[in-house]
């Protein structure tokens, strides 16, 4: 069986003539555990929470180093404390390298500095001027995984103030073009993308004839859609073609993904239960204080665990090695009563005095909880001699920090930020609290990128890993 798998690992030709590659197989590493560990795939994950954290006292551990204590915003780390390092005292400067522009409107203006290490354009645009960390490592890591990278988001809608780009945290540099990677926020579609044509390891084939028929129809439809797109693209002028080329390429990619069933690998790999229909997306107006507000809630509490499980299996089954996850939009207007059971306002207003510092911490903790659950799942997923988490670097970033209440108390700033890093890829040694003394959050990403093998000490305008993360 092993030898047959090994021979099949060379490129296969699928039914539509497309070339498909099998994912990384434990078999490739040979039987020896050491060999397995040496060739196990490395994974990279970056998470983002659209919350400006509350006062530093709600998250900063008193203890520095190992055995740190958990304050309110970090309570969900209890079970994975030894696998996660908390870095406090991070800052995005108002000017200089990786700055947020100072004069620009805070919120999405942190996306560029945080994820790409580039300064925000003068107009406060949420669009980075350079590739994000996940996209810089995606090609390096991809190997034979089905997806070059996955981009997910839990919050499906903007809810208020109308800017879809405020929920995009992944940008790919493709030649001269910087392409935004719109995240997938439908658990339904994300599930189908991951598990259509999926064959769990150790046998088990798709036997449902109804599903099989549907797959055949889907392939036929997509085949025609692709043909028509190809014809159209060929008729476009060069500028139009450049603009729409990716549409065609994504059709082709999807067609290849569903045209061939892929053998999954990984000892803990399993097909997840079907999540069913997506929870409904909702915005509603509620009376808050003395006036009504538009807030939104789309069942994020149900969506987040599904997405977490999908990320887990995407790694465990080696369907991808790079994931970015925007848990919430920048300046999220998510309904905090529906989300956390605290009084009705939205996540953004909470930081403006719409709630207490503790309540803000609780909403930060909502993001920490889902990140921690993924850490826990990967930690419990055996791989080779260790676990998937041992071969992973994960970073969790937040939109903003909180200025010193004594000096101003503005909840919207690049000061007093914290971030989390988990996993043991590349010699990362998690499980401690580090005070960064004004280092940029992007230095965390540089560390994580190096941990998965990027041979570069810079990201955007910033340079240098945080050595303590490896010590």
């Amino acid at each position, binding site marked *: 069986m092993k030898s047959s798998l090994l021979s099949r690992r060379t490129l296969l030709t699928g039914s539509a003539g497309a070339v498909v590659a099998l994912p990384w197989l434990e078999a490739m590493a040979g039987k020896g555990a050491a060999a397995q560990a040496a060739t196990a795939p490395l994974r990279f994950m970056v998470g983002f929470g659209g919350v400006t954290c509350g006062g530093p006292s709600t998250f900063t551990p008193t203890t520095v180093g190992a055995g740190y204590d958990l304050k309110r915003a970090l309570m969900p780390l209890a079970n994975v404390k030894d696998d996660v390092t908390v870095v406090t005292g991070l800052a995005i400067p108002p000017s200089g390298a990786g700055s947020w522009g100072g004069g620009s409107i805070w919120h999405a203006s942190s996306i560029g500095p945080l994820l790409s290490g580039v300064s925000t354009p003068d107009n406060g645009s949420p669009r980075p001027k350079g590739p994000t960390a996940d996209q810089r490592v995606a090609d390096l890591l991809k190997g034979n995984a089905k997806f070059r990278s996955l981009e997910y988001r839990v919050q499906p809608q903007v809810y208020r103030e109308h800017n879809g780009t405020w929920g995009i945290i992944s940008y790919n540099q493709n030649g001269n073009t910087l392409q935004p990677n719109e995240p997938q926020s439908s658990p339904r579609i994300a599930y189908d993308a991951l598990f259509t044509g999926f064959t769990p390891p150790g046998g088990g084939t798709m036997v449902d004839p109804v599903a099989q028929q549907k797959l055949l129809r889907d392939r036929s439809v997509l085949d025609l859609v692709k043909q*028509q797109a190809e014809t159209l693209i060929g008729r476009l002028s060069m500028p139009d073609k450049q603009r729409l080329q990716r549409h065609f390429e994504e*059709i082709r990619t999807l067609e290849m993904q569903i045209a061939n069933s892929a053998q999954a690998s990984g000892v803990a790999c399993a097909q997840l239960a079907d999540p069913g229909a997506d929870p409904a997306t909702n915005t509603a107006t509620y009376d*808050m204080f003395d006036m009504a507000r538009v807030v939104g809630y789309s069942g994020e509490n149900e969506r987040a665990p599904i997405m977490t499980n999908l990320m887990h299996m995407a790694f465990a089954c080696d369907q991808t090695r790079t994931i970015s996850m925007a848990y919430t939009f920048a300046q999220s207007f998510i309904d905090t009563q529906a989300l956390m059971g605290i009084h009705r306002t939205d996540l953004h207003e909470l930081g403006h005095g719409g709630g207490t510092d503790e309540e803000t911490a609780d909403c930060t903790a909502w993001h920490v909880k889902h990140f921690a659950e993924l850490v826990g799942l990967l930690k419990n997923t055996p791989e080779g001699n260790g676990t998937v988490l041992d071969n992973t670097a994960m970073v969790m970033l937040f939109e903003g920090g909180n200025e010193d209440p004594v000096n101003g108390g503005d909840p919207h700033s690049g000061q007093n930020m914290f971030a989390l890093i988990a996993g043991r890829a590349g010699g990362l040694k998690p499980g401690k609290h580090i005070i960064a003394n004004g280092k940029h959050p992007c230095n965390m990403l540089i560390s994580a990128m190096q941990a998965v093998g990027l041979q570069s000490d810079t990201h955007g305008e910033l340079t240098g890993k945080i050595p303590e993360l490896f010590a």
Partner: protein
Amino acid sequence: MNGLLRTVRSARSAPIWAILAVCACAGEAGRSAGGKPAASSTPTPPGTPGSTGGNAGLGGPGTGTGASPGTVPTTSNTTPVPPVPAGLSTLGPTAIPRITRTEYVASIKSLLNIDVSGDVSVLPPDSFTPFDNAADYQSPSSTLIQGLRAVAEIASDKAMQTPEQKAALVGCTPAAANDEACFRQFVASFSLKALHRPLSDAEVGAFVAFLPFAQQGNDFYIAAKMVVQAVLQNMEFVYRTEIGSPVTGETDLVSLTDWELGARLSYLVWGETPDAALLDSVAKGTLGTPAGFRTEALRLLSDPRGVSRIQRFHAMSFGYEQLPHSASLSLAFRTETDALVKRVVFDTPSPWFNLFQSTDTYINQELATLYGMAAPASGYAWTPYPDATRTGLLSQGSILSNGAKGNDTSPTRRGKYILERMLCSPVPPPPPGVANTDQPPPPVAGANCKKDRYAAHSTGTCAGCHGQMDPIGFGLENYDLSGKRRETDEGRPECTITGAGQLPTGTTFNGPGELSKLLVADDRLGQCLAQRLYEFTVQRPLQATTDDAALKTLREHFNGTQFSLRDALLDWLGSGTFRYRRIEPFKAQVVP
């Protein structure tokens, strides 16, 4: 002249066309040549005759209908030659736009008679800039492709649940599960509506690959659903692929085909696919004539869908598309403002500025109570304002809802709103180094009234910009975020609101009535309307210099119609440049 051109064309004398096109660029001499070429018996695109060797550079032969080479739809298209439009050389560039969520829902309603508004959340959210259609935000992604596929599947299921639905949609009764004639007929008719052009026989034939699935399942509608899915994922449905045909002597200018022109008009005025009548006018060749075009444009604009589109244009322009109030109050505000827009633009087309000067407003009991006005006997009614402190748009809750900070009005944000949304005069961001607290100024010892707190803005580096914004906002302070009159600060009865406001010019005013007069007297108000209409049409923000001439032309149409939005729009669309497209260069890195 028509006869001459017809002769020229029939002789396939390409250089003549090229010469005529060059003359056209030279001005008056070419006025009879036109961007629309000679009449023809087929919808062969303008410009094709001028293309080299009979093989058009962009798209090849047959681009006129988008049909594959060698296939010719059977529709006739006898079109007189319109005059060469003035201003073609200054036409601003546009990109190929993608269908917005709103347009998607409307098009699906029109095509399939179903509502997918609850299903489109899987499509990437649109960005409001202030319009939801800016092409620079419409980057393709795997999420887009997956979302389009998912909604197409849902739509195909919803559209064919009952026998009545199936019969109405397919339009023929299949004699068998694999009835190819009926199937082809459905493919052709549905594609025509969705892709706004006829498919060639070969293109229709490609769908026949779906029929074996119908036969296998012994159900014709298995294949019919696959047709719907494929068409809704077709890039020509998802994008308005304006390929056109080249205009000789111009490297980046194309003349749209009549089919493309119909789609452009329909998506601009209705925000959805062309209806049967519009497609018919394309097929008959009437849309390509100035008179025919104007007739169709007026028909579309006067249709409830056109009215609704113009109302939404205003809602996005002035930021009340999503109101921060209870459902009932939000609906009442929207009803009030929509009624005013409809009256000024359509019912009795009049100067657009009447939006700001109306002395009555369309309210119900709820709004009457809120505004402190006499309530109508029942439902909604036009009700006169008691005095001149309130007039027009600026007195309405939908406008006054803007400029909130926290739970209260922010004079800064209200001032910024007036300057940016009404006058298109952006306020620069705070200079580097100035802390942008995104917070209202904190209370200062002994002076907790809003006026005192905002006094901090009027000194030092803040004063330059805040001096422009804050005094405007203070002139509206007597009206809270729902448009209710108030005499003191929220929760501070000791803080009397004077309502004294001032424009950056130094002119003072008090309240929405007086501010309206000042805005109407300000040339920038009309200029801003023209700019927004232009931006909405070209689906991108105005580009300084490049668009100056085009904007000036549009402004002249406003001046020529005493600023009737309806008539100016009709004149502008009919002026001839509307059927041309200057291809926007590709921007590798978009940072809007």
